[in-house]
């Protein structure tokens, strides 16, 4: 399928099914149950899973394969967003053009920033990218205000020129669309106590993410991908084998920048606004955490990491003191208060604390990330199955052994008798 190895094709299929059925998978709890707050199947969050999934998948092509740890990739998220919003202001609300321009402009930005940062490697490279991240944020806030809208950010206005679109009717607001298809259009499907939400914007983003994932698989299994792994492994040997590692690293940097730009452009396509906080340096750090948490250098890891973090950020953060008391009302009062006091710092606004703990546990005990964790669990089950399958064979061995022991015992007994 699609010129892929069987294993990769299966992976692609799983991701496709997950994307298609996300509204069901993410909404497992009935609407009025106490667990409904753990449902994540609403458009806003589903879209965010996809944006950050794309961001992390792209970041992984740089970090996971070449080992170059960039602390500045949110810059391209921001650049993509600003580029997209300007397309929406000046040209058209059709998101296709906005997204294409976002990818191109962020690719150019990545070319310049990568070209400079990649003069050094290791920690120096990381620090240079971090410096760029801080500078970009500061610039967006100050000097570049005419382009970025400064602190307030930008959004399409009724008065914008939008020369490719026909004039809006009186009282109409500009709506992001794909050839007329409204991104905010949503259909709710009620099945018994369950409500499933299908949103146009989400599915458009999901299709793009599918393509991004496919491209990532192709890169991973291509000679180009092998060269990127070679960079991580031994740049010296690469150079003495006739390979110029510089353009390879730069290409990886630009490709990952373009993924980020696409993610940024998509954000604008869905919620038609942008502010400089999108490129704050902590956002660059977040994608690093996502990638490592899920499994750097693996295909699905970054996507899983992004999903887990966005889930916690949006769901765990909603658990407040009231909710905790509801959960533990059945405990004696003093114990209830005690438990709530212990747990409270880790939920609600403290969700970062829980994430920190999880991150540390993963890095220390399963350095390969969630993907390695899943692999270990699968291996464990497979092994157990094999053991029970091989038990029948060993059982017959045991029988034989038992027979021998019995025989030996009898001999000893008869010897004892003779001696006695």
């Amino acid at each position, binding site marked *: 399928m699609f*010129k*892929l*190895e069987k294993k990769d094709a299966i992976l692609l299929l799983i991701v496709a099914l997950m994307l298609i059925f996300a509204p069901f998978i993410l909404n497992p709890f009935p609407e009025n149950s106490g667990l409904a707050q753990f449902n994540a199947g609403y458009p806003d969050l589903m879209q965010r899973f996809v944006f950050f999934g794309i961001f992390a998948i792209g970041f992984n092509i740089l970090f996971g394969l070449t080992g170059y740890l960039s602390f500045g990739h949110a810059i391209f998220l921001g650049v993509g967003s600003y580029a997209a919003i300007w397309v929406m202001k000046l040209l058209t609300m059709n998101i296709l053009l906005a997204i294409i321009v976002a990818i191109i402009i962020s690719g150019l930005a990545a070319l310049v920033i990568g070209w400079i940062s990649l003069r050094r490697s290791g920690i120096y490279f990381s620090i240079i990218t971090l410096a760029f991240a801080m500078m970009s944020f500061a610039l967006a806030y100050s000097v570049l205000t005419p382009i970025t809208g400064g602190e307030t950010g930008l959004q399409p206005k009724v008065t914008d020129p939008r020369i490719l679109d026909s004039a809006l009717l009186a009282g109409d607001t500009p709506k992001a669309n794909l050839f007329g298809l409204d991104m905010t259009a949503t259909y709710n499907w009620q099945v018994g106590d369950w409500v499933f939400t299908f949103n146009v914007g989400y599915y458009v983003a999901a299709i793009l993410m599918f393509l991004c994932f496919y*491209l990532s698989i*192709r*890169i991973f*299994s*291509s*000679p*180009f*991908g*092998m*060269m990127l*792994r*070679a960079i*991580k*492994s*031994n740049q*010296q*040997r*690469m*150079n*003495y*084998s*006739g*390979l*110029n*590692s510089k*353009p*390879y690293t730069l*290409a990886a940097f630009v490709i990952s920048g373009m993924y980020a730009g696409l993610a940024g452009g998509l954000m604008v396509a869905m919620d038609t606004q942008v502010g400089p906080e999108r490129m704050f340096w902590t956002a660059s750090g977040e994608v690093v955490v996502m990638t490592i948490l899920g499994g750097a250098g693996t295909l699905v890891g970054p996507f899983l990491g992004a999903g887990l973090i966005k889930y916690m950020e949006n769901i765990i953060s909603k658990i407040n003191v009231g909710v905790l008391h509801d959960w533990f009302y059945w405990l004696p009062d003093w114990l209830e208060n005690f438990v709530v006091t212990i747990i409270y710092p880790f939920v609600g606004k403290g969700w970062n604390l829980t994430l920190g703990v999880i991150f540390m546990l993963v890095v220390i005990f399963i350095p390969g990330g969630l993907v390695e964790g899943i692999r270990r669990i699968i291996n464990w089950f497979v092994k157990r199955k094999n053991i029970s399958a091989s038990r029948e064979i060993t059982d017959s061995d045991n029988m034989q052994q038992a027979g021998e022991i019995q025989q030996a015992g009898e001999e000893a007994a008869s010897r004892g008798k003779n001696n006695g």
Partner: protein
Amino acid sequence: MAEAAKNIVLHIADVHKSFGGLHALADVDLAVEEGKTHAIIGPNGAGKSTLLNVIVGKLEPTRGKVVLDGELLTGKKPHEINQMGVARVFQTPEIFPELSVLDNVMISAFAKRDGAFKLNIMNSLESETDIQEKARKIIIDFGLDKQINEHSGALSRGHKRRLELAMCLIQEPRLLLLDEPTAGMSRHDTSTTIDLLKEIKSTGMTIVIIEHDMHVVFSVADKVSVLAGGRIIAEGSPEEIRASEKVKKAYLGEAQ
């Protein structure tokens, strides 16, 4: 003199290299003839590896130049020099330890076929059947077929050397540079390496070999240059070198 105009593959002219006050190489002149195996011997710290580093572009000489088939190598980058046909096996094996033996060899083969950079994402590694086959063949020839899918970092030192040699040879280089290919090897491995070197030599390959083991040198070398204190103190056929008092002194000096 009788057979004039021998084809010189590598020409090192008046090369100096100093590190601060240390003259690692001084007045080095060397000419390596096509199809010949040229050994460079000398005590520890004589500057042998430094000379190779100058050839492959790892170090820039303080003075002088290195020429391959009439083309200047000095000032070029390592990958450019390799693309011009110079392949090197290092004193401590330089391989891709995280990658499989097959991947290691394939990377080399890609470098030869596609040049220093190619954004090749349209093909999968599996669909690159030519490169695959070429790599598998040389891996079998080098007796690494059992380890073909192993991480090369897990190989024994001897096998790592072999792998690095295979990576060089798959590129069919114009000039092969070997830095102590038998160092740390058992007598048995050394003798298989000698056989291997003889085989490579028989293909008409031009080789520069640095070697401590005189048995190896006298088995494979056509010509020997003796480096001591950064200078070439003697040069000649293996027999001449073996007989030279000057060379004996240089080595004895080191031993004491």
